[in-house]
């Protein structure tokens, strides 16, 4: 069995996902970063972006995280996001509507949020 790391994906008001994984890919301010078991302790600032978790049973969990932090130590990885949604929780139509509305209103941050949601939802 491959080495595993324990992942906690938490949003400000709830725990979104928790479990064992073999690889976690997230987007920090300086680029995408992949964390595998045994990585050096790490603390990074996350950008709005999809987070991909390869679970130990071979599945893949994709979540949209809007801002936050990634922290890894002792084979425990925590992803802290103010808002985080799993891809299967995302309402694609709603996100599309939000994207259009954001484009009309030229609201860059809302557009980015909606875009991230859509990308996370479609990559599942």
């Amino acid at each position: 069995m491959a080495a595993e790391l324990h992942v906690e994906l938490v949003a400000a008001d709830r725990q979104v996902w928790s479990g064992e994984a073999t690889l976690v890919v997230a987007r920090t301010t300086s680029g995408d970063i992949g964390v595998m078991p045994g990585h050096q302790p790490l603390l990074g600032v996350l950008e709005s972006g999809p987070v991909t978790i390869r679970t130990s049973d071979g599945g893949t969990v994709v979540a949209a995280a809007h801002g936050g932090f990634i922290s890894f130590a002792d084979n425990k990885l925590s992803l802290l996001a103010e808002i985080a949604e799993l891809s299967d929780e995302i309402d694609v139509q709603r996100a599309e509507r939000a994207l259009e509305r954001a484009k009309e209103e030229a609201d860059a941050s809302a557009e980015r949020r909606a875009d991230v949601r859509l990308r996370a939802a479609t990559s599942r």
Partner: protein
Amino acid sequence: MGAQLRVYKRRIRSVTATKKITKAMEMIAASRVVKAQRKVAASTPYATELTRAVTAVGTGSNTKHPLTTETENPTRAAVLLLTSDRGLAGAFNSNAIKAAEQLTERLEREGKQVDTYIVGRRGVAHYNFRERKIAESWTGFTDEPSYADAKTVAAPLIEAIEKDAADGGVDELHIVFTEFVSMMTQTALDARLLPLRLEEVAEEKPQGELLPLYDFEPSAEDVLDALLPRYVESRIYNALLQSAASKHAATRRAMKSATDNAGELINTLSRLANAARQAEITQEISEIVGGASALADATAGSDR
């Protein structure tokens, strides 16, 4: 029905109606406490992880950040007071306000100028009535605060702390809220959010756990820059949630004693009403007996 009896009956009816209302409010508050407690529990993982991260940066690097270093001569402080929008919660609001006033007094004794920020209509009303200055206030979400509410509250505070005291900023940030200890106990307390006391943060963690040497992405300063506002927001969010839970618990308790008192009052009034009814009956009987004997006497007299 006699006048006395009618008055008692009317009062019993009125108290019964009040009792029904307070009973309903008690039940509503009881269910809301559970909900609020669940929200506190749900926000805990984020707060713990965030505290871990802050501790990690604070102790794992020699970064100096305005938010973690104490000013030598703090001259201005901000106090955030959390109250509720609605009363009927016993001493909940007055305890929180009292705690805030004690803290303000203490800070002023230390020679600091205090800016007061208030959440909740009760606190705002208290300060307005005494014509005290409020730097900023928020109302309307104290029953069920969301993270977005915590962010709106935190934003001006973070802005103020990042400014120099000379330009209208503050050196310290204190918060006064009601801690939810249990269903029966809630205590108003004050805490200093910023500058951060790292030792204190570190103490919240289990002892004997060595902190790993972290690799910061992109840099320790940037991480701390991004981390501390989130930390403040999360602390305020937690305080808001605890205040909400405490408020509901206080309401439940206040309404329970109101219901109990109403029940007692109804008992006393029923006894009085019974006594009045008995007195009325006794009087009626004696009137009848008296009347009958008078009549008997009169007829006995006319027979002769």
